């Protein structure tokens, strides 16, 4: 498994996760997100990033948790995945994590939670385990977006 050695750690529902820093374009505070019809519940909507329209997912909903209360203070991570910019809403952005290869472990054979399919590795630090998520997997949507006739199987690739 090839992983970059720096990661951005963030919190979702009191758990700590991280994504490879190389994918992170920027972090923005709360922003106006417009919902998009026909999309699954984890698709939070679109936002305007300096004139560019970017799709944003809600990580809580992606993990099968309750979507965050819209009044709660949130951050949006803007990631670059396969050349596209995509956003994801997290509870808070915490710190940058530097890990050596030997500190990364293959993900444990999770019981099939909605989360497990997004996991790339697990990082073991002195105090805790941090789940390293794959940006690509987070933004691969096998779920059909539309309940209508022309449902695309949208995969960001």
């Amino acid at each position, binding site marked *: 498994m090839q992983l970059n050695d720096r990661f951005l750690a963030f919190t979702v529902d009191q758990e700590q996760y991280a994504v490879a820093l190389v994918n992170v374009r920027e972090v923005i505070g709360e922003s*106006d997100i*417009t*919902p*998009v*019809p*026909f*999309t699954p519940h984890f*698709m939070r909507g*679109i*936002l*305007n990033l*300096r*004139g*560019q*329209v*970017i*799709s944003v997912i809600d990580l809580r909903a992606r993990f099968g948790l309750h979507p965050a209360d819209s009044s709660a203070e949130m951050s949006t991570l803007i990631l670059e995945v396969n050349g*596209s*910019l*995509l956003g994801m809403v997290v509870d808070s952005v915490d710190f940058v994590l530097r890990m050596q290869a030997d500190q990364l472990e293959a993900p444990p054979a999770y019981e099939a939670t909605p989360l497990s399919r997004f996991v790339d590795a697990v990082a073991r630090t002195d105090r805790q385990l941090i789940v390293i998520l794959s940006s690509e997997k987070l*933004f691969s*949507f096998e779920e059909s*977006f*539309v*309940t*209508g*006739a*022309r449902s*695309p199987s*949208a*995969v*960001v690739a």
Partner: protein
Amino acid sequence: MDAAELRQIVEIFIQEADEALLQFEQCFLDLESVGPSDTLLDKIFRTAHNLKGSSAALGFSDLAEFTHHFETLLLALKKREIEVEPQIVSLLLGARDFINNHIECLRAGRKTPGKGEQLTEAMLRARDPKPKSQVIELPRPPAAGDIWFVGEDSKAKLFEVPQEPARPIKPLPALPLDPKLAAIQAEIERLTQLAASVNMSTVQAAEPAENATAQEVIHSSDEQLAQPNVTEKPELASENSAWSLASIERLLKSQVISETPEFLAQADAIHAAVAQLNPEQNSPRSVASSTAFNTLPTSALADDRSVEHVQQDKSSLVLSTAADFSSEPASTANLKKDLAANSSSPLASPLVSAAGALTVADESVKVNLARIDKLLNYVGELVILQSVLDEHRGVFSSPLLQKSVSQMSKIIREVQEISMGLRMVKLKPVFLKLQRIVRDTSQQLGKEVEANYLGDDTEIDKTVLDRIGDPLVHLVRNALDHGLETPGERANAGKPAKGQLTVHAYQQSRAIVIEVRDDGRGLDTNRIREKAIERGIITAFEQVSEERIRSFIFHPGFSTKSEVTDLSGRGVGLDVVASNVQAMQGRIEIESLQGQGTTFRILLPLTMAVVDGFVVKLGNERYVIPKTQVAESLKPHEVDVNIVQGRSQLLNLRGTTVPLFNLNQLLKRSPSNSSNQTNLTFEGIALVVMENAKQPFAVIVDDVLAQQQVVIKKLGKELQGLPGLSGAAILGDGKPAIILDLVELLLAQSGNLPSQHSTSKTRRVA
């Protein structure tokens, strides 16, 4: 050279070939319509020759071989050994298509279609029947390793009709595998040509070339190379070719080439040739023409008037300047120096430069569309920020600040206008395609047509240009096939045998109009009406306007082959035309007088980047609905609405009923406000959608907030293909809103648009 660089060179070659192919098509059609002229034939020949050179240089041997035969045929034409006849033009067009196919394969990285033996055979045959004189044929198609020069013998012999074919001085050392060297070789060949052509013009025109523009100069031919039978003023011609050779020599000695020992040897050979040709001339006159390597020393470029193409980073920014001989050499040189400094791929330029010199006469910059879109993005953002500033202008106490803001507004508006214009391109390529279609189709149908094309320099959004071709081809075919009568029928109707077909593009206020007009039989509205009743589109008792009846021909599958009347076939594919045009936010009008002709008029928005829309409110959200889709907006009253079976509703619109939908439901949103759908009171506003032949319908929204122009933004890949969502727009407060396509939305929901037929049924139920 790595693979990326090679790919880049191939891309430039493809670009160059595209230009050549466009030119071929235009020229071949002109051959037939305007008639062959020396200038035209020269132009064609030169273009073919360049294409051959570059394809050989890049090692596309199949293409090189094919273009060689192509060129030889053109040469025969040029020498008037064979006449320009329709079948020759067809053959030329066929060959052009083959090359086009080849280039398309290269572009797509597919397997190329081989050598085109059949066409080659046909081209050889075409030259054969009238062997007025010996065609000078190169012994074999030039491969990358060859340089072709014409006779290094004495000048007296050189310009007589030769007894033996032109032959290579000596093939270069076997280097074809190194693209860098191959490119230089191609360049030398081109230089020779270019220099020769400039000199030829001096021979032919009494005036020296000093004041002629590059374009004019190069219009003259390079006959010496391929066909050394110039008999006029042999001394002068000899002198001229001496210059050209001298210029090559000079170039060869420039630093790029001097690094390569093989080329030094070659340079010596050329030097010897120059000496032989030109023993009395010590210092060659200043060389008017030389095509530049980027890496040439600036001094060598000082009097160079050729075109400089620079490949900058990844983006394909190609800068071209074509200066006159008389233009300030210093500034040109400086510019070139700057460009050369930025250049990441020096070899990229020679491959395009010659083609550029031949075709580009005006100063222009080719910019990647993605860059323009990025610019437009930021400009759009600027406009939004500016409107925010404008709104809060009252807050500023300082008059200076106020003045600055209002001044800035003006400038930003200007900038927006200019940047929108960047996406605009001329319609010409599409018109060329039409000319070809008209020619081929009318021949097929045995109809005589006089076709006129007006306004091919009308500018249109690049995206529209890419998508308007097919609908226009459809309309033109349709006009030829079904609009125009056969010569016999026309004679009976007292019309001239030749049918008239006019394609006319022009700008009308904020729209681009493209008309396809024929003077044929016109639409028979009675027949269409009958057919519409037969198909259940309207009822027999319904009063329908003529206009609406005509629009029925856009109904999918409206006319079938079983119809044997004069309107047979009309409508085949016309539904595709209609939907294509609608997809571009445009519309089609039809004008027709029976017996006198039909005009299809396509009206398109000036740009695809902006749409005029209604901003509507739905709960807490806003959506944009293009104005082109909305015929009217109204506040329905209780009495206007009938509820049918709880779900579908009908709106009584001045006597006609149209189905009424709730946008909330169409978007599968949970109703966000209290407007109770089973209740007959309506808080909202109904937007009536009426598009061409499609059945009108209405949707209910909470409110219409504004009518404004918005910049269309693409949705991300992950959101594309969602039915009815055609993009996003950023509204005045910086928040994005979805742009809806109501027709598509409804289609996706119901599988079909409600037809009047079913509507009338439900009405009876009610």
